């Protein structure tokens, strides 16, 4: 085989190897392989372009540019290096920042040589912030932190370095040293070496280093349950003290509102009821008045009817005076008009005297035969027509008839009327005697106290009347009666 072909094959072989390593971010191994590929064939443009890309990936932008420039010199057309260079030239700002970071890194090396590690750390922090993919800066910063004993920061820097180059020998060696130093520190503190176990957790966020206590799993599990229980209790307390009263208050407010509405409705209904009651009362009064008016009208009608009947009867001369008198007694003179009253008076004047005579004679005959009911009826009519008929004799016998038939009350009433109207007459004496007898009978019977009290009321009146008249006989009688009355009172 032609040796040139062999060289080509070897060059391609190492290019492929470098490509595999680059794909898994093994930039150190990729650089070695690609350099070897270029050693076999310097014109392997692909290998050179990839080498530049690998350099760019680990932050060595200048080295990458060198490779791309050389690649472009070997092949000016169909070369991706042209595009890479064009992108770099178009982003002058980023290139300037990268350049500044590189300068700071180089300055840090001088600081470290002078022993000014503090200044170096400050400059390197700025460098990695300006150029976050600068691998060598992370490694140098990690070395400085290890030297200063700041293992957490060193771990963070090494973590970033491993992201950029997974198999970098320096990074791996520093990481191993870090583990060793951390374990020795734990043993010196008296605690068992537990890789990965630490009370604090340190991690880096940008330029800041955050330190937090490591959470305890035991505390987390037990405390979680306790916290949940406590949360449930607090929730129940919130519901009991805050939500339940509010709910009850809203319910009470709703109930009060309903009660208020019902009260208003009751009030309005009561008002309606009272209004309707007043209206009903007014209707009743109106109806009473209407009824009274109707009765009055009926009475007037009856009166006119009776009057007309009596007038006709009188004109016909076919009826006796007592019959016509009965009809006239049913006439209400006050309900008649002026002409009606005049006719009434005329008829009364013509009929009543004869009727009184007829009825009085019949009554006396009945009285004499002890038919006291008939006599009382007839005498009642006579008295209604003429109360003073026969000088009060009709009234007297009316009282006597009532007494004889057992109606003491009516008898007393009529007899008192006799005494009242005809005090100086024999009829009055008789009436008084009868009244005394009635009183005596009333006191003698059971439950007669009421009657006695009534009679006592009457007797003082009688004594008062007798004294008021001022005549000697009456005074003697009164004194006698006064003397008798106390005896009766004593008996009572």
């Amino acid at each position, binding site marked *: 085989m032609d040796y040139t072909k062999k*060289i080509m094959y070897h060059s391609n072989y190492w290019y492929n190897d470098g490509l595999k390593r680059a794909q898994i971010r093994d930039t150190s191994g990729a650089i070695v392989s690609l350099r070897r590929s270029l050693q*076999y*064939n310097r014109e392997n443009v692909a290998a050179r372009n990839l080498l530049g890309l690998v350099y760019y990936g680990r932050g060595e*932008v200048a080295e990458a*540019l060198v490779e791309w420039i050389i690649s472009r010199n070997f092949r000016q057309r169909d070369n991706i290096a042209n595009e890479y260079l064009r992108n770099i030239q178009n982003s002058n700002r980023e290139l300037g920042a990268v*350049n500044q970071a590189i300068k700071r*890194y*180089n300055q840090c090396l001088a600081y470290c040589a002078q022993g000014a590690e503090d200044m170096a750390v400050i400059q390197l922090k700025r460098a990695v912030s300006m150029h976050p993919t600068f691998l*060598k800066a992370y490694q140098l910063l990690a*070395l400085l932190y290890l030297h200063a004993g700041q293992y957490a920061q060193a771990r963070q820097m090494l973590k970033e370095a491993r992201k950029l180059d997974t198999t970098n020998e320096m990074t791996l060696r520093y990481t191993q040293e870090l583990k060793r130093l951390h374990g020795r520190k734990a043993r010196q503190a008296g605690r068992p070496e537990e890789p990965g176990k630490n009370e604090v957790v340190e991690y880096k966020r940008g330029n800041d280093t955050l330190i937090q206590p490591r959470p305890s799993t035991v505390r987390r599990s037990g405390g979680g349950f306790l916290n949940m229980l406590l949360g449930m209790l607090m929730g129940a307390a919130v519901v009991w003290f805050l939500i339940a009263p509010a709910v009850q208050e809203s319910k009470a407010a709703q109930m009060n509102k309903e009660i208020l509405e019902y009260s208003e409705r009751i009030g309005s209904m009561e008002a309606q009821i009272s209004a309707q009651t007043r209206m009903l009362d007014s209707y009743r009064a109106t109806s009473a008045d209407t009824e009274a008016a109707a009765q009055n009208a009926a009475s007037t009608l009856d009166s006119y009817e009776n009057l007309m009947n009596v007038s006709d009867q009188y004109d016909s001369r076919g009826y006796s005076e007592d019959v016509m008198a009965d009809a006239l007694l049913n006439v209400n003179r006050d309900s008649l008009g002026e002409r009606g009253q005049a006719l009434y008076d005329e008829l009364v004047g013509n009929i009543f005297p004869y009727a009184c005579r007829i009825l009085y004679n019949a009554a006396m005959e009945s009285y004499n035969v002890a038919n006291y009911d008939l006599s009382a009826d007839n005498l009642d009519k006579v008295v209604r027509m003429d109360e003073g008929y026969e000088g009060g004799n009709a009234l007297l016998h009316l009282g006597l008839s009532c007494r004889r038939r057992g109606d003491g009350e009516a008898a007393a009433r009529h007899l008192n009327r006799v005494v009242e109207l005809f005090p100086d007459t024999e009829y009055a004496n008789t009436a008084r005697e009868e009244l005394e007898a009635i009183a005596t009978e009333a006191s003698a019977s059971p439950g007669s106290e009421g009657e006695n009290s009534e009679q006592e009321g009457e007797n003082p009146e009688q004594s008062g009347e007798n004294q008021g008249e001022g005549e000697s006989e009456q005074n003697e009688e009164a004194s006698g009666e006064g003397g008798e009355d106390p005896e009766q009172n004593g008996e009572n």
Partner: protein
Amino acid sequence: MLNYEEELKKFKPSLEVEDIEDAVYQEDLSDMSDLLKQVMDRSGVPTRS
């Protein structure tokens, strides 16, 4: 155990943008072909052009 000083020596200055031109010119681009050619020249073996 790391030796801080020794480790520090391993860190070399990084190439800056201003130095790219010089670095391109100073880049050693010799490869296997050149090496074989030199060997053959020294041995006096004629080489194909």
